[in-house]
């Protein structure tokens, strides 16, 4: 067996262990808590191991070689007409790097959950669900076609529903679960239509057959679609992007994500870092050759323009909301929306590698931040309001330091953190390609640094402002351990993608591994993408100023003189009504309620009452009533006219005729009766033909 065959088998097996863990826990081990978490973690560790083996082996081959000969296995699954939709796996550079970060973050979250979920009555169930979640993400990552990707995509949707509503006794949790499921589903359905459209045009859904075939892409780019002015490629691209808008919580479908904080915190980490929202961005990164086909110079295709607009808008918009949130997890939720938007915007301007890079670094530091906030929540006895916290630095040192690292990475603290390298790359491209996008993203970066510092100060510095924070304690090692590991990645992972032209460091490292490896995923296309030819210090300076400036501002407002108990947020005092609007998330939930939900419910009710019960049944009952009236009239005629006069006379005639006829018609043979029935029906038929 060659190494390649071995890797093929491993790749096929990667999503399997968590799925088996899910099945076994649900079916057999629901009552045994310890056994359940052992199975789940063991299975995840197995997947982790296999994913790492695959990753490290293919790294040795290099990006170009892997692009030329990706690992690929296929089996026929759904025969449809002449074609067969196959299920299959494929590992190209993008898959490899995604496997790498997904397996690490998932495993960290699994281990962490042992501590976080301790004592929960549905402990085993929890591990079953997150195992299924991991299956969804791993399966999506190795999928070699859109249909399979969609299947695992939907499995994750289901898991998010189950996990956000995990504490379904709480009405808010249950509502959040439904909201998440339905909102993402709107995107999913549009995406499914895109898939259907693509399939109807190409007859295949395989990534290799569509994305690597110049002829197919060209054909899609020149064929006009059903929507005038758009090529098929553009129409499909826009439809697919809708899936990302839902799954990765971009405006206007972002509303589900903050509410999703109702789920247990490891779930938030799972959704926000390791799996679901990453999947949304992963999909558009994966489909990038299709989205970008027809791009001329720096002028993007319609899907790219849409991504640039929605991405940069969301990045800034979500950051402004995050500034005014008091719930420790909600701040992070909005920062997730904002950071994902950076990736979307990056893809929109054609910064393919930068988007993928930020996807990976974000997964690490956001998982770290969520798990850190979970650690705070557990340590502070389920307190989530930052206004009630403070002073946790001394009480929870490991959590504090790791959270600080995560926060700095999120803010893009220069050189030292991974977040800096990926965000800087996006900004460098934006500077070169689209100044509007650049300035919006830079402003977003400033806000990001500011609200991160605000969060750190409110949570960890000063004196405790609440009872729970007063008695907070550090969490056990199963929770802090994963934090430390993730913190290492949040610090050092950035160095795999240092631009070669970067002063000093670039020369020192000498090779932008990430760019070459992941960039190879799109083959030739990479060299046609526009980008800065040489190093430009201006965007770098602005990016550094934004990060440091935001952090400093945050420090000045919240750190230098920590908030006292009962004191209002200084920002609320200064911004007044603006702050209220931000705190209420621009009232978008309320708006949706009035614009979409209320009218829908009203319309549905009206349709049912007026149309179903009123019109259709009304007509029906009218007809029935008519029949009844006719019957009564008939009886009247029968009683007074026929019985009264005519009948007695004619009765004799009829009787005689009847006796005669009986001998002819009533032969007692069933066939003859049926024949008579038939003749009557024929007569009807004849009437119908004559009159219609």
């Amino acid at each position, binding site marked *: 067996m060659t190494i390649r065959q071995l890797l093929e088998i491993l790749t096929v097996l990667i999503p399997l262990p968590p799925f088996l863990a899910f099945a076994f826990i649900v079916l057999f081990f629901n009552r045994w808590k310890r056994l359940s978490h052992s199975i789940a973690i063991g299975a995840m560790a197995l997947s982790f191991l296999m994913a790492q083996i695959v990753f490290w082996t293919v790294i040795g081959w290099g990006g170009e070689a892997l692009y030329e000969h990706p690992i690929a296995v296929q089996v026929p699954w759904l*025969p*449809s007409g002449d074609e067969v939709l196959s299920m299959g796996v494929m590992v190209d550079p993008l898959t490899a790097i995604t496997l790498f970060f997904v397996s690490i973050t998932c495993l960290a979250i699994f281990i962490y959950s042992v501590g976080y979920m301790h004592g929960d009555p549905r402990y085993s169930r929890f591990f079953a669900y997150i195992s299924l979640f991991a299956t969804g993400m791993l399966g999506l990552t190795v999928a070699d076609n859109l249909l399979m990707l*969609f299947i695992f995509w939907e499995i994750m949707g289901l898991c998010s529903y189950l996990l956000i509503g995990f504490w*379904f006794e709480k009405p808010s949790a249950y509502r959040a679960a439904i909201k998440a499921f339905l909102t993402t589903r709107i995107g999913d359905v549009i995406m499914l*239509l895109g898939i*259907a459209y693509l399939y*109807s045009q190409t007859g295949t859904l395989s990534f290799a057959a569509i994305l690597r075939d110049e002829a197919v892409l060209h054909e899609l780019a020149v064929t006009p679609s059903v929507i005038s002015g758009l090529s098929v490629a553009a129409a499909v691209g826009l439809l697919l992007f809708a899936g990302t808008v839902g799954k990765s919580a971009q405006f206007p479908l972002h509303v589900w994500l903050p509410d999703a904080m109702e789920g247990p915190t490891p779930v938030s980490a799972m959704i926000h870092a390791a799996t679901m929202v990453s999947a949304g961005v992963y999909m558009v990164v994966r489909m990038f050759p299709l989205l970008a086909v027809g791009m001329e110079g720096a002028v993007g295709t319609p899907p790219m323009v849409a991504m640039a607009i929605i991405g940069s808008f969301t990045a800034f918009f979500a950051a402004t909301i995050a500034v005014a949130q008091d719930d420790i997890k909600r701040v992070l939720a909005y920062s997730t929306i904002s950071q994902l938007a950076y990736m979307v915007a990056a893809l929109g301007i054609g910064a393919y590698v930068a988007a993928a890079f930020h996807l990976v670094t974000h997964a690490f530091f956001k998982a770290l931040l969520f798990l850190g906030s979970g650690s705070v929540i557990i340590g502070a006895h389920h307190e989530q309001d930052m206004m009630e916290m403070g002073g946790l630095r001394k009480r929870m040192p490991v959590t504090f330091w790791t959270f600080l690292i995560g926060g700095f990475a999120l803010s893009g603290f220069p050189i030292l953190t991974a977040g800096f390298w990926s965000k800087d790359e996006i900004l460098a491209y934006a500077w070169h390609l689209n100044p509007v996008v650049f300035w919006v993203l830079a402003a977003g970066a400033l806000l990001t640094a500011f609200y991160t510092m605000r969060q750190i100060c409110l949570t960890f510095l000063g004196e405790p402002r609440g009872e729970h924070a007063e008695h907070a304690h550090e969490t056990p090692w199963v929770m802090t351990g994963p934090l430390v590991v993730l913190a290492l990645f949040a610090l050092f992972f950035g160095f795999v993608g240092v631009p070669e032209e970067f002063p000093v460091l670039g020369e020192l490292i000498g090779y932008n591994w990430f760019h070459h490896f992941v960039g190879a995923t799109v083959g030739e296309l990479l060299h046609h993408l526009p980008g800065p030819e040489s190093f430009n210090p201006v965007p770098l300076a602005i990016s550094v100023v934004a990060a440091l400036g935001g952090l400093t501002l945050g420090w000045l407002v919240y750190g230098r003189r920590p908030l006292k108990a009962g004191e209002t947020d200084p920002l609320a005092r200064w911004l007044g009504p603006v702050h209220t609007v931000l705190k209420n998330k621009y009232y978008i939930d309320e708006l949706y309620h009035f614009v979409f939900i209320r009218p829908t419910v009203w319309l549905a009710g009206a349709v049912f009452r007026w149309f*179903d019960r009123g019109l259709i049944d009304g007509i029906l009952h009218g007809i029935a009533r008519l029949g009844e009236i006719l019957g009564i009239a008939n009886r009247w005629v029968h009683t007074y006219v026929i019985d009264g006069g005519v009948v007695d006379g004619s009765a004799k005639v009829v009787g005689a005729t009847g006796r005669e006829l009986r001998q002819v018609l009533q032969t007692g043979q069933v066939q003859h009766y049926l024949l008579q029935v038939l003749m009557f029906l024929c007569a009807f*038929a004849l009437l*119908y033909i004559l009159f219609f």
Partner: protein
Amino acid sequence: MEFPVLSVIIFAPAVAAVLILLLPKDRQTEPKVLAAAGSFISFVLAIWIFLAYDRGAGGYQFVEKVPWFPAIGSSYHVGVNGMGVMLVLLNGILLFCAVLISWRIDERPREFFALLLLMGVGVFGAFALLDLLLLVLFYELVLFPIYLLIVNWGWKPLREYGAMKLTLYLLLGSLVAVVGILAIFFTSGLGTFDMVELEGVALPVSFQRTWFLPIFLGFAVLASIWPFYSWSPDGYAAAPTAVSMLHAGVLKNVGAFTAFRVAVLLLPEGARFWMPYVVFLMVMNVVYATFVALVHTDFKYIIGFASVAHLGVVLMGFASLNELGWSGAVTMMFAHGIIAAMTFAVVGMVYDRTHIREIKQLGGMVQRLPWAAVGFIVAGLASMGMPGFLGFIAEVQVFLGLWRAADLAPWYPVIAIISAVGIVGTAAYTLRALQYVFLGKLNPKYADLPGTSTLDKVALVLMSAVLILGGVFPFLVTPIVQSGVQSVLALLGGA
């Protein structure tokens, strides 16, 4: 002579029904056992033909042909192609499950089970018969026991109204269709009711265009096509559980399948002419029924409207007039049959114990009826097109088929888009029902509600297994469906 497997499938329940009626009046258990035995024989044999059907050869298999009324060219001619196999299998599964679910019936069980089995006989016949005249006879045979079942064993406040509405509606629909069938009989000039022979005849185009609409709509009434659907939710709400299960699960399929076989296959030109317009009615099925299900608070009505919406998808698949769409439609018939039967069974389990169907008055049932809850979730997920369940396989094919039908009329992709909205709606009302009925707080009044019986569990597991197996391994289902579709696709002729 070969073993007449189809005839045995069709008539085994009939024999059981006769035996049941011969039992002394006071027997409670024997009728149930006999009914279970009779339906089990059909069930096992249905599985057997599913396995034994030669997918490579395709076409009609297990054919039996005995002259019945030679004077007008009518014969007892049964046979199934790939589509028929799936539907016979579906009825085999559901009839058996319906008997199991009805075990609690102790009001005149003899009559109940005899009528239930009779209904099954009619459905088997309607799926397997290849003779139009007998097909119509069996079709009517189905309607008669349903009326009695609803009126006698149904939900008291509604049963007379519901039964009458349902029966009159369907009779009227079939009357129109029968007239059309006679027109086909006379116009073909072959002097035969044999569908296989009729399929070979190209009827005049003008004739096809005139007659397609009445025949199609006549049968589609039984598939609850909009706006002739209103018998369905009322009828189901009124009917006893087993009848709702069978009616939604298989009877609607009889309507859809017969409409397809008679109207589309015998009048392909008519179909090509009318379908691009009729398809709007089917969209209404999806959109409209979904809307109503969103606001209704009666558990059984919600399921009833869900079924109306799903039949819209089935009919749309047929309306796409291409291979993918048809294959999707047949798969959807099968999937919807199981889904509808399962959900009605679950409603029945909850209702029998609480005598409440208002979802807002229920809650926390998962604690007392976990099996029913899981059954509802499985069926619900399948019904909202979640991958991993058979419903997804069906919906994907229907959508792909609709999208590909753009050459028929440019608005087909738009139809696909609109009906896709239905998927979101399905998720919404399913989760809403799930939340109100099964999650949340349990009313203390129900703290010691009896749990689900073993037979209930058997039925639920059996049906869940079918949905999941078919969803994870679609190659178990699609090749046989497609062999059936391909064998009739040629009838459509060139565009």
